[in-house]
């Protein structure tokens, strides 16, 4: 008697109790498998390939020339450090905020083949930082916020005033 009664009262046949366990297991798998780390890095546009390698026509006064040699960093021919690189770029960028596009500073980063990649990144980083600091200053002055928090349109306004112009290339032996 009691057996039959239990049957009638019983729950629906599919056991749902273990469902959450199964789902949990799947959930844990996906959390573990998720690649959360987002890459960080320095973006750059390489110069277009030109078989003749004809030198670009840029006015000397605009160019900040940085040479990476095994013996150290040379800024416009003078031995210097990465911090000086940063200072020079930011100063030049700051001076040229009001000037037309053709007079904005271009940083030319030349490297010899023996220099390790790390040094190249360090130099590039400091050059970028030089531009970035001035962009940030201008952004705070004009919009009252840091460059990072600006919208796309505002960013463009700043970027036309302080464009990040960097070209890279290898030093040839005859240079």
């Amino acid at each position: 008697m009691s057996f039959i009664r239990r049957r009638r009262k019983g729950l629906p046949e599919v056991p749902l109790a273990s469902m959450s366990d199964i789902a949990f297991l799947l959930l844990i798998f996906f959390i573990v498998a998720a690649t959360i780390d987002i890459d960080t890095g320095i973006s750059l546009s390489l110069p277009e390939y030109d078989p003749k390698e004809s030198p670009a026509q840029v006015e000397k006064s605009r160019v900040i020339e940085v040479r990476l040699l095994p013996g150290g960093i040379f800024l416009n021919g003078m031995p210097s450090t990465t911090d000086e690189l940063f200072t020079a770029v930011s100063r030049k960028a700051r001076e040229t905020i009001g000037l037309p596009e053709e007079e904005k500073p271009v940083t030319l980063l030349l490297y010899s083949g023996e220099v390790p990649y790390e040094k190249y990144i360090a130099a590039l980083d400091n050059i970028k930082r030089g531009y970035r600091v001035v962009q940030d200053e201008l952004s705070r002055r004009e919009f009252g916020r840091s460059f990072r928090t600006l919208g796309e349109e505002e960013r463009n306004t700043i970027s036309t005033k302080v464009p990040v112009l960097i070209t890279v290339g290898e030093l040839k032996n005859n240079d």
Partner: protein
Amino acid sequence: MISFAGKQKRKDSKPGIPLASMPDIIFILLLFFMVSTVLKEIDVKVEYDLPEAITSEKFDNRRLNAWLYIGRDGRIQINDMVVSKENVREKFEVIRSRMNNVIVQMRVDKNVPMALVESVQLELRKANCLRVNYISSQKQKDEK
């Protein structure tokens, strides 16, 4: 009487927390993670130590990327394959024919000489893949 009836109901009922909606909640979480997960597609076959940089920016656009690795030993890997220097251009021309605006994510060991990086970059330029990104770990500003 009323209180008595109430008491009986209490005794019958299950413990306080309602567990019926638990699977639903978990399923929603599950779906979220399934959708947002990007499973690791690339098997990295070269070893490298990344350089550090202060101006490192985050990149979240995963669709347009091609991956280029240059290992400690100078081996070059593109996406899933280890290739020789001569094949870099060919490989990137194929990639570019599929993705016009490809961004080349470069993971280069910090001690690799620039001569090798330059020769790879020259091939990239020949293949007209000009947008590169030097992956570097973020360095804190105050330790400059």
